[in-house]
């Protein structure tokens, strides 16, 4: 996880699926707990080819984690398949989806 001031970028690598989702969620929360000042989190999905419903569960769980600390969460670099998931399930209305990490970091609400 890269931390700059109160903003952080968390890069996920590989598929986020049932097999690894629980571990990924716990590791992410541990890192965030060590960085209490982080109130804007961008999840970089550039190296994630696919996420299943357990993967969506991880993102939702981190969304709530950030909300509980009055922070915000966004995702960036998602491929077309993942963007489609965010569109169809209307998660995009709750979690902003940005084309690039830089763009996401520049936004105020993230």
């Amino acid at each position: 996880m890269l931390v700059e001031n109160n903003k952080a970028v968390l890069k996920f690598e590989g598929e986020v699926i049932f097999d690894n989702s629980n571990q990924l969620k716990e590791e992410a929360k541990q890192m965030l707990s060590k960085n209490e000042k982080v109130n804007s989190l961008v999840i970089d999905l550039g190296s994630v080819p696919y996420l299943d419903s357990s993967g969506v569960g991880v993102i939702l769980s981190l969304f709530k984690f950030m909300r509980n600390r009055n922070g915000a969460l966004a995702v960036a670099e998602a491929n077309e398949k993942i963007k489609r998931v965010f569109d169809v399930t209307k998660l995009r209305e709750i979690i902003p989806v940005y084309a690039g990490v830089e763009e996401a970091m520049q936004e105020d609400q993230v």
Partner: protein
Amino acid sequence: MNLSLMLLLLFLMTALIIVLAVKIMISKKDFRKLESRGEIKNLKLKEQQNKINELEADIKSKLKKARNIHRRMLPDKLAEPDDYFISDYYQPAEYIGGDYYNFFKIDHGALDSFFDQYLLYFFDVSGHGIDSTLLSIFVNDSIENYFKLRHSPGEKISTSKLMNYIDQRYQNEGFPDDYLVCLFIAVLDTKKSTLNYSSGGFQYPIYKLDQEDRIEEINIGGLPISAALGALKDSRREQTVNFEKNNTLILSTDGLLEQSNGDQQYFQQLQGLLKKYKFLPAPFLKDLIRSDFYKFTNDNPGKDDLTFLLMERPAGEIINCILDQENINLEAAEIKEFLNQNLWSDHLHFQTLKEIITNLLENSELELKIKALNNQQLLMFSLEHLNDKNGWDSILNSYPDLISIAEKDLNRSQNGEAEILFNDQEIYFSHTASNSRMYLMLVKEET
């Protein structure tokens, strides 16, 4: 060399031998010590490995039990309105099942004769291990509770309200933030020919084959039920689909449609199959999708549950008969008349089919529901035991030439489409997973 020098040399050599002997003895002791330490370590490692194996076996056994509980929760038999055919397929993932579905007639009590409504729902829960079975139990329990506590006979059923009720209950239970429920709930009203539904969470659409031979994709996405999102009261509105004659709905959780063979996902192939074989009645189309899917994945079912349902309102003439002790003669006469209409008398195998049905009608001990469909392309009989749990193996044993699509090895065209030729040289059969319903079909010429 003088004696004193020799004695000194002898003394030194003896001393050297003694020192070496002592060293060897100490080394041997150390070696033994190390050896025993190594043995202890090996023993400890073995113990730990045994413990890991025991834990693994315990987890597998618990997951297996959870899967069995989940399987037992699934309905043995789905309701089937008179003018419809309902078919289902469910294959759980290796150890745990998170999918569930049901289709039942809604009880309107004393007002029942004014209504003919059915509740259809299916859901996919994402949780870890045994929790997903508990989550399935929770959703089913919520639906059951809604009908017990919130719904009065004759009252309009709002799928949106039912969804909100489940969501609200879910929020009160304190499920973990990363769990979610993707849910589709619909009310089929056969008198109005409508299907009202609300849904949330699914990534893939359902498909409707209509009378104009079109395939319509119906989005059933929207936000899932999740503790991370909290209760979402107004987000899952009720939608309506008209359900006319010659319409079929293909409903599925993500396990079927998202499965990839490395080149593409199955949903990309399914549409081609539906276009090509839309004439097939729901039970046979179900078998064909199943065969096509396993061919597509090279017999790899994937890691997720596979669940899909087909709901068909066919075109053509349909007769429905329930043969029990009270009306066996009357109903049997209706079926015999149907068989004697000679519409299919030229078909190569019509006499065999007629013989199967007539033999059944003559067995007065059986209580049966028989449904027959006759249209321009095919003749199909649906046979259902009402008082016998032995299934339909006796027919299969007596007529070994009957053909099952589910067992056929499909060929593929160059475009990757399934190629199966239906012809008048065969009698095709299908049956439900519990084998309580059997379907027999004749098709005209080559289709």
